């Protein structure tokens, strides 16, 4: 804390609450209320119902939930593999190549996601690679959008680990493959799981590029929220959003659990 006096600290906390409450907490609270509102014409809803939540977890909305999770897992897996590979390879590449790789892998966040979506649509609507109309164009678009975070998180992890460990492994007779699998990747595991969590969270919420490319049978949950509210079904839209939030949270918790299990197994071995 940079502010030391008691009154000064109280003032800072009050200011933080004043900004945080209306900007972050209020919209979330309203969403929670709206998800369970039967009908809402005055300050508070006139009646309560669980009908919206039931509808948000059934039928097409349930299909969308599964689509969202599959897309997030698939896109994140691709992004982690490509991003980690690029980050490790760029480390030993000449300075110029490294700079170029840095720039290329930061491009997807530098340009608006709509541009990424449109680009994918134009690029893959015709041969030689025809992805338009399949789920793969959505997964590919998400992978492109989250690969930046995978790349930069793993790069930061590499900055923190000592490159000399590769020398140590080599001096002990480890082949390049063994150095990668037994030393570099295990030491990067915390960065890789952090990158995976971030990529999944971002993919679960992505709408800008998805809306440009999604085929009718591969509609993600955020797109459903968008179309529902667009048609005036705000309360159902809120319920779907709550489902999206909970689903994202559960997936991230599972990733965290998996990471714990891997570390536990390594400790026991």
């Amino acid at each position, binding site marked *: 804390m940079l502010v030391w006096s008691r009154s000064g600290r109280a003032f800072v906390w009050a200011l933080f609450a004043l900004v945080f409450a209306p900007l972050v907490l209020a919209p979330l609270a309203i969403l929670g209320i709206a998800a369970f509102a039967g009908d809402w014409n005055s300050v508070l809803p006139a009646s309560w119902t669980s009908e919206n939540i039931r509808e948000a977890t059934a039928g097409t909305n349930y299909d969308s939930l599964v689509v969202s999770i599959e897309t997030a897992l698939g896109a994140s897996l691709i992004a982690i593999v490509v991003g980690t590979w690029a980050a490790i390879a760029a480390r030993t590449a000449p300075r110029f190549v490294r700079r170029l790789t840095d720039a290329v892998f930061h491009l997807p966040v530098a340009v608006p996601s709509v541009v990424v979506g449109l680009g994918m649509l134009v690029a893959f609507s015709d041969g030689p690679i025809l992805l338009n109309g399949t789920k793969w164009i959505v997964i590919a678009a998400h992978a492109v959008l989250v690969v930046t975070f995978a790349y930069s998180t793993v790069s930061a992890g590499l900055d923190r680990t000592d490159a000399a460990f590769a020398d140590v492994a080599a001096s*002990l007779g480890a082949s390049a493959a063994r150095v990668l699998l037994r030393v570099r990747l295990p030491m990067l595991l915390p960065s890789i799981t952090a990158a995976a969590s971030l990529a999944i969270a971002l993919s679960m919420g992505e709408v800008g590029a998805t809306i440009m490319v999604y085929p009718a049978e591969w509609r993600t949950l955020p797109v459903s929220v968008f179309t529902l509210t667009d048609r005036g079904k705000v309360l159902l839209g809120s319920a779907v959003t709550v489902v999206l939030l909970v689903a994202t949270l559960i997936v991230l918790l599972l990733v965290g659990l998996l990471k714990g299990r891997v570390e536990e197994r390594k400790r026991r071995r």
Partner: protein
Amino acid sequence: MTGAAETSGANKQAASDPGPDRTPDHPAGLDAHLVVTRGAFRLDVHLTAAPGEVVALLGPNGAGKSTALRALAGLTPLGAGHTRLAGVDLEDPRQRLYTPPERRPVGVVFQDYLLFPHLSALENVAFGLRCQGVARRDARSLAAHWLDRVDLAEHAGVKPGRLSGGQAQRVALARALATHPRLLLLDEPLAALDARTRVAVRATLRRHLADFDGVAVVITHDPLDAMVLADRLTVIEAGHAVQTGTPAEVARHPRTDYVARLVGLNLYRGTISAGGVDLAAGRRLVVAELPDADEVFVAFPPAAVTLYRTRPDGSPRNLWQVEVDGMELHGDTVRVELTGPVPLLADVTPLAVAELELAPGKPVWAAVKATEARAYPA
């Protein structure tokens, strides 16, 4: 690398300069001529050693010690020269021969030890064995045996983060030795330890090095580490070997100011004339026993210097008026740095400091007995 008086068989081999095409002195040992150029810096050092011998590379920071280590391990390719170990040519740029680190029978104990943080002590030691294709079970039992040898059996399952500095060093040593290397390299093996554990760890390390049947090369900037651990020293400065010999020899007959300062001796170079030694700028040192040579080094310990407030009676033959430049407490003596016609280091008692009223800038008379100074051929 023309050494001074040779006192051991090992030193004879070091003193002779192995030409590039000569057969190595030790078919089973190390014969290396390391040449690495990096920008303006050039390392050019010959190293030979018999199996079982411990050689220390002693030098100031930036002298090229670490470059030499990396070159021996294959982590930095040679620009010229060669590396032969245990009768096998490992590297020779002229024949485009280069053996990568993972295929050299070389073990390294790195500075700060660099134990794999994600592996237990046992897994760290087993790592090299697994690389050699030893089955997991056998690797683990061999690793356990090595941990037992360094008295760390009960720490097998511990992650490196929870080991003390001395324990980490022993795990690193066990890890390097477990692969049965023919050359063991130790990079500043004691630098990461605090002064108290250092003494004990140094003694333990010496015992383990004595048990090792391959060639051991210790890199250090600490003369005490070098003297205690090594059978032979090679002092390098600015990428070149300036002196090679047994610790006793190097300590008694330093050949550069750096070595003299390391072992705490006053060192001068001059020419013999009329029962004394002519130094630069017309100064003379009278020495009791002179060797049969023209150019000589003269060395004497700081304790051989006596200080007087006024010009002493009886006039010792080596007497100069000098000025106090600085003082430093060493144990229970005070080392006084003196400037003047002959720069000197003098050791005096704190009582003498008080009686002589020594302080920076104070002029005093300094005398050196002719019997305390040793002269040896340059």
